[in-house]
């Protein structure tokens, strides 16, 4: 794990357009990490204290089910942000996450970022708006999946 240069961080799609001084603030609370394939980022129910900005690889969000392999809810890759649960109480992960292949990411320290945002409102606003945009995009994609567009006309049994 390495401390991150602000210039590297500003290249991530999630932070595009953010003021360089705000990025520099964030860089102080960010580490560059390399996650091997199979690495477990977090488990459902555990305390949520980080988020990750992925730069390469693939992470699967899952939900454990008794007697069966975990169900994969969604996969995320380069350019995506993982982890919203650190933002608000009860600060607990709602899903689990595993790197399904070697993955590189920027890991943000939740409490440290929270303190920075309290002290620097502009950074807080910028980060919050980006988190919101990512969540909305995820929500819209999920709604589309719920529509089950590829089902036979008139609905159909799960294939």
């Amino acid at each position, binding site marked *: 794990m390495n401390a991150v240069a602000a210039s590297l961080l500003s290249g991530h799609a999630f932070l595009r357009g953010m003021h360089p001084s705000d990025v520099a603030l964030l860089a102080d609370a960010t580490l560059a990490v390399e996650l091997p394939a199979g690495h477990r980022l977090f488990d459902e129910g555990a305390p949520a204290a980080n988020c990750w900005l992925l730069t390469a690889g693939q992470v699967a969000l899952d939900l454990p089910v008794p007697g*069966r392999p975990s*169900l*994969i809810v969604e996969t995320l*890759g380069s*350019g995506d942000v993982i982890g919203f649960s650190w933002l608000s109480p009860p600060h607990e992960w709602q899903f689990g996450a595993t790197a399904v292949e070697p993955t590189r990411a920027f890991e943000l320290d939740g409490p440290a970022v929270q303190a920075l945002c309290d002290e620097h409102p502009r950074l807080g606003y910028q980060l919050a708006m980006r988190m919101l945009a990512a969540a909305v995009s995820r929500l819209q994609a999920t709604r*589309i999946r719920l529509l089950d*567009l*590829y089902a*036979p006309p008139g609905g159909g049994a799960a294939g």
Partner: protein
Amino acid sequence: MTAATLPARYRVASRAAETHDTVTLVLEPVDQPIGPHLPGQFTMLYAFGIGEVPISISGPAGPGLVQTIRSVGAVTRGLCEAGAGQVIGVRGPYGTGWGEADAAGRDLVVVAGGIGLAPLRGALLAALAARERYRRIVVLIGARSPDELVFAGELQAWRAGGADVLVTVDRATAGWAGHVGVVTQLIGRAQLDPAAALVLVCGPEVMMRLTARALCEHGVPPGNIRVSLERNMRCGVAECGHCQLGPLLLCRDGPVVSYARAAPLLSVQEL
């Protein structure tokens, strides 16, 4: 050709089940074959005594006729149940083709949703057969679940032939190690060059609208996106009036239409 054109007789040479409700038929002419066909075009397939439906051709141009049919009603059920040796009727080929060769020197991108991969397969196979003509060939596939992936056994061959193939499912089942999410999420994953891409999109109309919109947001000009549109069809030869979408008669001006032309039509409800 007019609506009074008699169906040509074709025999089922082979039948392969793609999924629990989708079948690919390889057809051979009993008498004279129908005219040469292009990927993107469709035929009217007749199941004796039941009826006729428009089905996109799912193989490349050539002597045989490959058609992939999803069983959703009486006629398609009859066609899906046709066994080897059975004779069905064929009229066509009708409509506009994908024009995949227009991507020569550039990136050919194919985005398929569900059964929409079938009308695109012919264009993809034609492109792979002339691989040097294109820079990248990218295939983005969205399926309902891993069990409902059509042509699943061919993806490896497509990769070996020089295509980047990314697959995502709306809902994963146990053992699925690939992407899970909507097909538009693959656009970023594939790192498409929006200035260099000709994108062919096929699937349910909602999926095509959302995919085209996502491509435009990614920077692809609407004129470089082609969609395959569908409306009620009866005659297939621009005589019955059913397949109208605004000024377009989809059996003649489609089914493949530039998104630049289709976008304003798709945005009017109940057009």
